């Protein structure tokens, strides 16, 4: 995609983040139907339609520069948003290689990577970086590998080691999360990490997902979508900062919901890493206000129906309890009762 960056957008204070008309059209709506329930909705992460968020391995969009700046602000205030246990170093290098190779291949106008044996040169034009280093030698980079490259990518990264028939969350960079904490979860097994998710355990979603992921193959990444909602276009809704964003939920009314409330969609990708045999879990966050979403009539109808019928346990888990009704009321005039076409395309 021919990306024009919007470097001055903010995800805090005055919240100047907005989606262009083009960004709205390519928004990854996570509802293929008018009802929502969990499923192990995993599919191969292969190249999707041109211009879509899944055209490339890692999507770089108009928010790239602004998101990288927001990430720097979070890390400066809370350095523990990046953590890696000592045995995860080779997995960190694997992540760096995956991200650099993908970005340079898919966005040659913005990024380039020259490899001569272990001597690498990485150029990131949007952020104005030019780095020469020796792959595998931590001392030749300004930061640890995942810390270095994670600051130059949109979305969070969690790296899981595979052993004892389980996946252990043992490295990551997490600054754009939907109310969970790397610092709290680091060292946990797959099911411990997902402990708070309601209903899914009883549906053995995690048994099946874990079994599937343990056999994830090199060169065959997979993806899925997940979603929640956030008041204001705030990327960093962390438990650590709950006092800053939790109270926002009490400010939503049926009058202001269109501008305050955002659908928050996570494009989650999973890659087997070659040298470490670890798995990296990428969580890319997309935000769209209800007013932006309602510019697509089909999406407004569907959003209204999904929210109205959402299982009460999911309403609570997603933190929507206080304002779901207000959003449903705001969306109601956009739902004329007509059927929606299958799939998520805008029509």
């Amino acid at each position, binding site marked *: 995609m021919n990306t024009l960056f919007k470097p001055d957008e903010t995800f805090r204070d005055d919240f100047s983040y907005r989606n262009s008309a083009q960004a709205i059209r390519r928004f990854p709506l996570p509802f293929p139907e008018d009802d929502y329930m969990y499923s192990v909705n995993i599919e191969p992460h292969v190249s999707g339609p041109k211009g879509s968020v899944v055209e490339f391995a890692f999507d770089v969009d108009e928010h790239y520069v602004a998101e990288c700046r927001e990430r720097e602000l979070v890390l400066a205030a809370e350095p523990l948003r990046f953590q890696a246990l000592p*045995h*995860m170093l080779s997995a960190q290098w*694997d992540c760096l*290689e995956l991200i650099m190779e993908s970005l340079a291949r898919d966005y040659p106008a913005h990024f380039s990577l020259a490899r001569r044996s272990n001597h690498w040169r990485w150029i990131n034009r949007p952020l104005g970086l030019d780095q020469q280093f020796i792959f595998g030698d931590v001392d030749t980079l300004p930061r640890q590998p995942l810390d270095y490259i994670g600051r130059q990518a949109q979305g969070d990264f969690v790296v899981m*080691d*595979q*052993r*004892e028939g389980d996946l252990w969350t043992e490295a990551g960079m997490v600054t754009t999360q939907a109310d969970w904490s790397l610092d709290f979860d680091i060292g946990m097994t797959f099911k411990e990490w997902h402990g708070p998710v309601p209903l899914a355990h009883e549906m053995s979603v995690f048994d099946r997902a874990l079994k599937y992921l343990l*056999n994830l*193959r*090199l*060169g*065959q990444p997979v993806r899925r979508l997940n979603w929640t909602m956030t008041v204001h276009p705030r990327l960093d809704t962390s438990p650590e900062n709950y006092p800053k964003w939790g109270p926002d939920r009490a400010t939503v009314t049926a009058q202001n919901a269109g501008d305050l409330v955002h659908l928050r969609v996570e494009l989650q990708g999973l890659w087997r890493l*070659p*040298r*470490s*045999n670890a798995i990296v879990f990428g969580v890319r966050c997309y935000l769209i206000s209800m007013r932006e979403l309602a510019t697509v009539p089909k999406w407004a109808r569907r959003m209204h129906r999904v929210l109205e019928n959402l299982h009460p346990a999911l309403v609570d888990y997603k933190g929507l309890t206080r304002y779901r009704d207000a959003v449903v009321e705001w969306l109601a005039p956009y739902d004329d009762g007509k059927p929606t076409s299958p799939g998520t395309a805008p029509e």
Partner: protein
Amino acid sequence: MNDAQTLAVEVAAIEQVTPLIKHFTLTSADGGALPAFSGGSHIIVVMRGALRMHRNPYSLLSSPHQLDAYEIGVRRMEESRGGSHFMHDQVRVGSRLEIAHPVNLFGLDKIARKHVLIAGGIGITPFLAQLEDLHDGTVPYELHYSVRSPEHAAFLNRLREREDDKVRMYYDSETQAVDFDGLLSNQPLGTHVYVCGPAGLINRVITTAKSCGWPDSHVHWEQFSAPPVGDAFDVFLARAKLTVHVPPDQSLLESIEAAGVEVPYLCRGGVCGFCQTRVLELDGELLHNDHFLSDADKARGKNIMPCVSRARCKNLVLDL
């Protein structure tokens, strides 16, 4: 997986390293680098013979730091159904083969305090790759490698070149044997043991470790079973609505594939569990040859691993 995701390779070198084992060096057919991998990984080699296709798993023995070529060791199996004979007799320098991306079902535990590696015969191959990672690391390790006789000690030169005092050889011909009790009863906490080789060796290590009080999570083993030859039988695939004949020298999985039905698989050696298939009806008995299902699951007879297991039956219906 399916064959669309294979890599094309060319055989760059072949060396007869013991009377039974050939060492193959494979380079990318397009001359580029091969995918990086971790020590303990195997590849599936797809061999298109004149009469039938073979897909056999072989551990990568080359260094994970060297990606211009992959190396494998192939032992000629006496009761081969053709795969190892194909590699030994028909593959030449310059032959083209297809391989699947490496998969690691036998990786070193990254938080182990010490690694004890035990190899028997061709079982040395995954450890050769792992030694490359251990050699420059800080975690202590030892390798115990037993073979029939010095002439059967594959890759001994490679081990000697390392001048590694942590490698110990045992020759059956000189009545040398690993003292399993001594070895496993006297290791520091946090040690992991890994064994690869013949079934007898693996069972010996597992039972000794258990009797010494080792936790299961610290005992690792890998043995790719070749699908055994057996009596012919027929199977009905319920979803495909198709009867498939399984001849004596072809596996259930191979027969189903030959009939045009895709079954997801990874290791084709009864290890990973990926091809697990539900048994809907059975009049007769399942001949389980895999290492994945528990004994209780095998007795229950509700699932089968078609890559290595067979049946002796009048009627068998699978959920495929």
